């Protein structure tokens, strides 16, 4: 789960990580008041849950008080990669001497959190990793011991060319960053850029905090930061029904059990000249009800021209799927053709249930995909 920059900054401030003076605002008038309080120049930054807001024009530096409202008005309401800007952050312009990157993620290979830092701040760390990996300093964090004092200090020494004073203040920030990471179950925490100011102090100019979805159950404070407005309502509805749904751009709707098989089905649709309309995993033990919800969600997408049901029964019973499919057909007016491939647990009774209906049966995944793509009108 992602949170906005201003929320991440609140977390930082509580943790004692230095952040600029800044105010989150929802209207141009609020922005004007904030700028007056902070003092010009200020920077106005769109609060959206996607990257690249700078390129999209979502960040503006304003020199004069009388220009604040106009600039804020341009950013508020702006559409950035499909998301509407509802809030902006009005922030002081820091006296930046140099920009750095610092972040913590869990390294999947080492199975441990890793502190990463780089003197190439302001740039995406993945780009630095690809182009100049030698510029990234990394240390593995022992989960039992936590980020150790010497580790933060040594990373700081590397980052600040042996300046022990800066290294120590960096170590303090890194320690606080890890404390937030561990205590709030983050999947990622980043300061990019961390800036060194003219006076030699360090400041977190931008902040990114992602929470582990699997740990939200024990962090009501994390959950409380969710921005429901920024989420796809169909994806939320699916999640509440125990389904995993992601809308895509194509016209072949898919209902699959298992994330891997669902992705493989999408890939095969593409391979056979079609375009998948969605990712949908009905999950483990599927009740007929879930199937009804799945069909309704898929059909709410007007692009969908055919539906492909691909089930390999294990815990999921094929007859439950068939029953759900028939119930969905009864409850809603399904105007598009449905192809069903049901194999594994209880495939026989499932086939019997669907016999005589207008659901097109298929014996293999390949056959099912071919038929569905064809029924959707090919790749067009």
């Amino acid at each position, binding site marked *: 789960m992602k949170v906005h920059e201003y929320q991440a900054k609140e977390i930082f401030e509580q943790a004692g990580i230095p952040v600029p003076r800044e105010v989150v605002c929802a209207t141009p008038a609020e922005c004007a008041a904030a700028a007056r309080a902070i003092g010009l120049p200020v920077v106005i930054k769109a609060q959206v849950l996607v990257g690249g807001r700078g390129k999209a024009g979502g960040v503006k530096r304003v020199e004069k008080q009388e220009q604040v409202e106009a600039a804020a008005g341009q950013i508020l309401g702006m559409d950035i990669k499909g998301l509407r800007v509802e809030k902006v952050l009005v922030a002081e312009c820091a006296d930046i001497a140099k920009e750095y990157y610092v972040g913590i993620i869990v390294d999947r290979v080492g199975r441990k959190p890793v502190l990463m830092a780089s003197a190439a701040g302001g740039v995406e760390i993945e780009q630095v990793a690809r182009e100049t990996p030698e510029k990234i300093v990394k240390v593995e964090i022992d989960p039992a011991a936590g980020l150790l004092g010497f580790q933060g200090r040594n990373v700081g020494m590397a980052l600040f060319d042996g300046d022990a004073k800066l290294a120590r203040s960096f170590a303090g920030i890194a320690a606080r960053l890890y404390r937030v990471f561990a205590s709030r179950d983050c999947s990622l925490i980043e300061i990019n850029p961390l800036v060194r100011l003219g006076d030699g102090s360090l400041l977190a100019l931008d902040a990114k905090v992602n929470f582990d979805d699997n740990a939200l159950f024990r962090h009501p404070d994390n959950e409380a930061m969710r921005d429901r407005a920024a989420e796809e309502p169909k994806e939320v509805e699916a999640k509440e029904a125990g389904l995993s749904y992601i809308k895509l751009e194509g016209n072949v709707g898919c209902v699959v059990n*298992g994330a*891997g098989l669902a992705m493989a089905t999408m*890939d095969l649709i593409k391979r056979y000249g079609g375009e998948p309309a969605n990712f949908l995993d009905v999950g483990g033990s599927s009740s007929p009800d879930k199937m009804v919800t799945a069909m309704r969600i898929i059909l709410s997408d007007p692009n969908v021209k055919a539906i492909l049901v691909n089930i*390999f029964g294990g815990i999921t019973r094929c007859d439950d799927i068939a029953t759900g499919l028939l119930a969905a057909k009864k409850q809603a007016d399904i105007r598009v053709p449905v192809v069903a491939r049901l194999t*594994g647990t209880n495939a026989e009774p499932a086939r019997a249930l669907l016999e005589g209906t207008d659901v097109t049966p298929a014996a293999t995944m390949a056959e099912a995909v071919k038929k569905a793509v064809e029924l959707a009108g090919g790749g067009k």
Partner: protein
Amino acid sequence: MSILIDEKTRVLVQGITGRDGAFHAQAMKSYGTQVVGGVTPGKGGQSVEGIPVFDSVAEAARATGADASIIFVPAAFATDAMYEAADGGLKLVVCVAEGVPTLDMVRVLEYCRGRGTRVLGPNCPGAISPGKAKVGIMPAASFARGCVGVVSRSGTLTYEIAANTGDFGQSTVIGIGGDPVIGTSFLDCLELFNADPETRAIVLVGEIGGTDEERAADWVKRNCRKPVFGFIAGQTAPPGKRMGHAGAIISGGTGTAPEKIAAFEAAGIEVIYEPQELPGRLAAKL
């Protein structure tokens, strides 16, 4: 032979008195797995499907000589069950639960590593060595004894691939799980398959996210003496969106399908684009 589990594996079912635990204990036992005991605190002395239930893993392990367990408890309690299994001296712990917090896994894996306990999962279907033992939740009828080793991050896609090994059958089929931090990697399984005389070919079923496939490919290039086939799910997945599995997310330009396929090709792994290609490709190599 086979890897991880065989007819001698003595299995405990943690959470045996729950709905899923009882169902799969019975299914594994019917398959021929030596399900020697179950654990549910407070239900010690009872039995489920003829399997004795104990209050703790330590007690169960002492009484039954178990060396493995499979956990059927909700995600919030799964790590405690893994700790208990490791503390009880079990060598293999399979965790099916989806939704275990990543940092909990980081901690429990460190604990298990220190005690010589291998974790398979979480968020995985387990393992099956057809004709010998099943420690998992897969539909037994989809598997047949043979010579192809299958290792996968998925559940049902694993069944689909295994079903497409045709007459070659499978030595062992392992689902390693769809989470970012898991106990057993592709690489771990490849090493075991490479050393297993019964396994003549290996199928690696990867998906987008992470770099586990790339690491495995690198190892294959340098060490593997058997034909390896690779499949990657998620070629059409957009970046930044989590495709069901917590681990299946393309972040910042890494973990994409093209990267993984390129790594496979560079390592001499034959890339499979459709499960149904598999029988022909296997026949050509074996």
